[in-house]
């Protein structure tokens, strides 16, 4: 028994040594990246996960090791935001990244205390000299999924479900309606705001009401509430109804998977938070960190857009979306970002 145990211990030691030899990571710790999640967690399939993927991509390319050159801190409640951001500041991290409007106040408070640290906030604007605010042209991405919706609808009625009614979500709304209108002005866009980002039951009910009234494609910009809309679309498709839902922020194709392996998610409007994180790390590394500036990632930067794989879209539709994208990038189409601009656009 003793012999077996000592053999085991020795073999573990040897394996440990071998593993040590296989070190393929960089030793250079002169530049370190910290990322603070919001309460959604590192794998929320949304902003936190996306941003972290951007950090990881950069790290892989530079042979960084997690915990050495880059790491994240999980926030379990909102009260953790300030201590977590400060923790990276105290450790003299070179760039500290956080994603989401939830970080607005905490970053405004923490950034001035660490003037030598570069802070990046994604999808929110914080006016501090050492904070770079990365925002997205959501209306442009929404325009593209509007084109997809207009091509998919047979009833000439499409729906939009917003989370909470404020300027940001209105950008999704305006862009989507403009995209639909550009393809076919006779298509009706029905909208409803849930007043909540975290109520799937409510999202399901709104979607159900819309589908019952003849809407056959719904675009949701409603986070967890939108999960209910995806559930409703799945159920109806399985019962043989030809309805679709369009995802938001990340590629939600997997979320809409049904028993037959197909998905009820037509396509998704992606905010490329990974691109935002990657670009900001690169800028900070090169000493060109845009502190105090607002950087808007557009279609031209690939900061927004539809996923690369769209099994539910025809090739012709993907091609058409590509054409619209080129027109928007070239400035031939100016996508409305507010309801007033939308009214002008439709005229």
């Amino acid at each position, binding site marked *: 028994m003793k012999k077996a145990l000592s053999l085991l211990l020795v073999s573990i030691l040897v394996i440990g040594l071998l593993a040590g030899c296989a070190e393929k990571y960089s030793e250079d710790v002169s530049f370190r990246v910290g990322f603070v999640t919001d309460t959604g967690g590192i794998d929320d399939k949304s902003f936190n996960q996306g941003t972290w993927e951007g950090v990881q991509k950069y790290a892989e390319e530079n042979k960084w090791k997690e915990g050495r050159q880059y790491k994240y801190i999980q926030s379990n409640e909102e009260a953790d935001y300030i201590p977590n951001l400060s923790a990276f500041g105290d450790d003299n991290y070179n760039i500290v990244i956080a994603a989401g409007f939830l970080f607005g106040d905490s970053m405004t408070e923490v950034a001035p205390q660490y003037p030598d640290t570069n802070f990046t906030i994604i999808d929110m604007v914080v006016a501090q000299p050492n904070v770079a605010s990365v925002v997205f042209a959501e209306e442009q991405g929404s325009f593209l999924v509007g084109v997809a919706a207009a091509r998919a609808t047979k009833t000439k009625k499409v729906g939009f479900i917003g989370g909470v009614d404020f300027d940001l979500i209105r950008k999704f709304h305006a862009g989507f309606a403009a995209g639909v209108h550009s393809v076919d002005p006779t298509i009706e866009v029905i909208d409803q705001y849930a007043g909540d980002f975290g109520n799937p*039951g409510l999202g399901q009910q709104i979607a159900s009401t819309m589908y019952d009234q003849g809407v056959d494609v719904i675009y949701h910009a409603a986070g*967890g509430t939108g999960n209910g809309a995806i559930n409703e679309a799945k159920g109806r498709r399985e019962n043989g109804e030809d309805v679709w839902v369009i995802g938001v922020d990340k590629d939600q194709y997997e979320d809409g998977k049904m028993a037959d392996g197909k998905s009820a998610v037509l396509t998704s409007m992606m905010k490329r938070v990974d691109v935002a994180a990657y670009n900001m790390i690169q800028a900070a590394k090169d000493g060109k960190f845009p502190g105090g500036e607002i950087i808007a990632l557009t279609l031209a930067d690939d900061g927004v857009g539809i996923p690369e794989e769209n099994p539910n879209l025809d090739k012709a539709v993907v091609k058409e979306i590509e054409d619209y994208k080129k027109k928007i990038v070239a400035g031939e189409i100016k996508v409305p970002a507010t309801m007033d601009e939308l009214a002008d656009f439709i005229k």
Partner: protein
Amino acid sequence: MDFIQFIKIIMPLTLASAAPIISTSLGGLFSERSGVVNIGLEGLMMIGAFTSATVTVLVEPSLGVLSPWVGIIAGIIAGGLFSLIHAYVSINLRADQVISGTAINLLAGGLTIYLCQIIFNQQRTRTFLYGIKKQEIPFLSDIPLIGDAFFSKVHITSFIVILLAIIVWYVVFKTPFGLRLRAVGEHPGAADSMGINVYRMRYIGVILSGLFAGLGGSIMVLSQDIQYTHMSIHGTGFIALAALIFGKWHPIGVLGAGLFFGFSQALGVIAFQVPFLSKLPYEFFWAFPYVLTIIALVVFSGKSAGPRAIGKPYDKGER
């Protein structure tokens, strides 16, 4: 939207959102009728929801369409097991029942996410392929008018829950077991002197509350969501508690209160699309379910019918 269409749209929505409330509320009824306050219903729902979603995801590859039902059974059992903590703390240790219930809520929120992290390596379960689907109820959906409104595009679980409410009514008010349960909640000392084991009855009451809340949570996540997340339950356990009080601790009252809460939420959703109502501001409809609730409470309030010994730990030596 004409009136007929309005009814056709709103009734299935009402049934869908009422089912988890009614089920959980019936669970609370058992517990409170036995004299144990159960503020932990929300947490028990979370445990049920998490377990059913997890089991559904895990057995899907082999069981297919059956998997949500296996998930529900697992969710019910998990709710029952978890409620043992509340039972032990509040019956044997005679701790404050409100605090114990609150602890259940806090514990369940953290524990479920922690387990998700271990099992799925993310802070939510994987999305399930098979949930509880809306369907036509055979035969009943063919009835003209009523069939369309009540038995078409509904979850079968909604009707199971309504049936359960009637069974609970029978059990609580028409059987010796029910009489003993109520006696223990009204005057445990007297019940004890008649040879009823107070601790045992209270244990049964609390465990039943766990089973029913587990069912409510399972129905909620499998019929409304695509996976279990920390937002899946979002306060429904507390609404169930309100429905219990609103329904005056009576199964049929609870059924009515649950349907009422479901209806007012559905009305808040659908009112946007009723032409003459949609002129009103959004905020009006968001406040709508709560305003309706307050009005109803004022109108129907009267003598509170709660069990008399509720919230008081029973000490055998203290007669």
